[in-house]
């Protein structure tokens, strides 16, 4: 295995080949600071048709990136939503033009804490401004102008992607014909914040982290970051799903070792997930992105609360939740539906029955994928007709 420094060197070389838009227009962030002339990394799949009415924008989740499907050129692994996006899949790349951008604060080519701060000529680290979901969304809006898309056929995203989507619809009410927020929430609950704080504390407790200055030494606080990822992973599964998958099964051994090695399969799984993650993600990015999620409370931005946020919506919504998701529960998702209903928006809602927890939106869940496909295809027919009239 290459050394971590070498790995980062390798990553930096490859990062040069990422598709990027240089956003010239200054963007005033919620924290008061302004960024301009910044890179926004993105990827597209499929072809934009002549009428430009087949574009679908995907917002990625906390640890996602712009490589939705196919092979991620940086990690050489499958795109994170390959179950749903691709030729002949629910979001069909033969039919639709799919766009996904890396969020600002991330580490896959968009402006983030690993970028060079022009003022110091050194990586930002903790000098990077604290960003919000709204900042992420406003940064991505410039991509639509760049691609020449006035109105999207659909925008979608799960988890933090769903939060970005709700923000996108509230901030730009006429930019998409339809929207599918999946397994998300309109504001982070105490439990959500607590879990994120656990992840952050794990990173900050790692001595290698050094107040975010590890980037200067080209190292990574991998122990802390791996623990942060393990916390996340537990919250993405359901109790029942975990029990069924691992139970008390031992990891390639007949009996207990009477040690602190990974005796149980579930331990081995978590360790693997944790240490695989440090090879593709930046610790400071986790701090910034989880912070953005914690600050998210859409109702706080509008005087009349969530109902006001969705007022005058022409967008047609489909909200989807998963029965065993305890991170962003059915109730969290239903609250969005209730607000959309109360504001008179066109909204559908489906709760998919599954044991797979929050992760369900990334998995091959036939009922979920069928619902997704049915909605997008029917919306495409409507959008085409509306444009013709």
């Amino acid at each position: 295995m290459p050394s971590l420094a070498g790995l980062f060197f390798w990553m930096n070389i490859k990062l040069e080949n990422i598709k990027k838009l240089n956003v010239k227009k200054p963007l005033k962030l919620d924290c008061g600071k302004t960024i301009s002339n910044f890179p926004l990394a993105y990827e597209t799949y499929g072809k934009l048709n002549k009428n430009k009415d087949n574009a679908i924008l995907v917002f990625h989740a906390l640890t996602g990136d712009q490589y939705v499907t196919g092979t991620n050129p940086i990690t050489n692994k499958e795109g994170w939503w390959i179950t749903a996006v691709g030729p002949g899949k629910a979001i069909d790349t033969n039919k639709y033009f799919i766009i996904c951008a890396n969020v600002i604060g991330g580490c896959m080519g968009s402006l983030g804490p690993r970028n060079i701060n022009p003022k110091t000529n050194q990586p930002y680290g903790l000098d990077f401004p604290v960003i919000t979901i709204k900042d992420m969304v406003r940064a991505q809006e410039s991509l639509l102008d760049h691609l020449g898309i006035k109105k999207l056929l659909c925008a979608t995203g799960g988890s933090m992607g769903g939060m970005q989507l709700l923000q996108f619809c509230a901030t730009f009410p006429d930019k998409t014909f339809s929207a599918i927020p999946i397994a998300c929430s309109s504001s982070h609950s105490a439990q959500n914040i607590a879990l994120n704080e656990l992840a952050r504390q794990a990173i900050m407790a790692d001595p290698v982290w050094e107040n975010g200055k590890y980037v200067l030494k080209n190292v990574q606080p991998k122990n802390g970051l791996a623990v942060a990822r393990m916390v996340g992973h537990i919250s993405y599964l359901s109790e029942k799903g975990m029990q069924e998958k691992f139970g008390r099964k031992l990891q390639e051994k007949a009996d207990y070792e009477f040690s602190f090695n990974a005796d149980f399969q579930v331990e081995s799984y978590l360790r693997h997930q944790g240490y695989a993650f440090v090879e593709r993600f930046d610790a400071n990015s986790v701090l910034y992105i989880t912070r953005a999620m914690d600050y998210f409370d859409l109702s706080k931005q509008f005087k009349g609360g969530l109902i006001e946020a969705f007022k005058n919506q022409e967008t047609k919504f489909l909200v989807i939740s998963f029965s065993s998701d305890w991170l962003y529960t059915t109730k969290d998702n239903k609250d969005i539906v209730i607000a959309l209903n109360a504001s008179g928006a066109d909204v559908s809602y489906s709760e998919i029955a599954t044991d797979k927890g929050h992760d369900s939106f990334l998995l091959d869940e036939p009922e979920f994928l069928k619902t997704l496909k049915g909605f997008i295809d029917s919306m495409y027919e409507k959008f085409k007709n509306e444009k013709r009239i």
Partner: protein
Amino acid sequence: MKKEFKVIADLLPSNTRVLDVGCGDGSLMSLLRKEKNINVRGLELNQSNVQQCIHKGLPVIQGNAETELHQFPDQSFDYVILSQTLQAFYEPEKVLRDLLRIGKSVIVSIPNFGYWKVRTKLLFFGKMPVTKTLPNTWYNTPNLHMCTIKDLFNFCDEKKINIKKVVGVNEDKISSIKKGNLEIKNLFSKLGIFLIG
């Protein structure tokens, strides 16, 4: 019953806002949207029905009418439709009150327990009636509160719920039901459709 949907469609003015509670696979919603340009919404419990509605491009919310009507604001629809499900609720009166709160008017249809075939089954065979409109047996029926057209008529009177129109349906025949012909229509209608509120 297709005739029922036809009667309901005829009761509704064009270009209105309608909520179909227990909308099934969306057949009635499709009809209303196509024939009358009605802005339809559905509420449905069954996942595969919800999926079918979504495939047809019909807005539908997956949920239970007994417990989840509170999410709809007061008077937010011109009409609310409840087709042949009132008798299946634990608390039909509470549901009916909620429907009247959400809709300016409400259309409720019921399988008529006063229909002569139902009456004779019980009278001559001494068994709980099983008919086309009431296909289940006593132990597996979802119907907890069976009533007759006359029962619902009297209920509305008692509870001071304004009855705008009542239509009786028997096979292909439909007829208007008033106080004067209630007894006879209660005997010969398979289905009662009430426009109230």
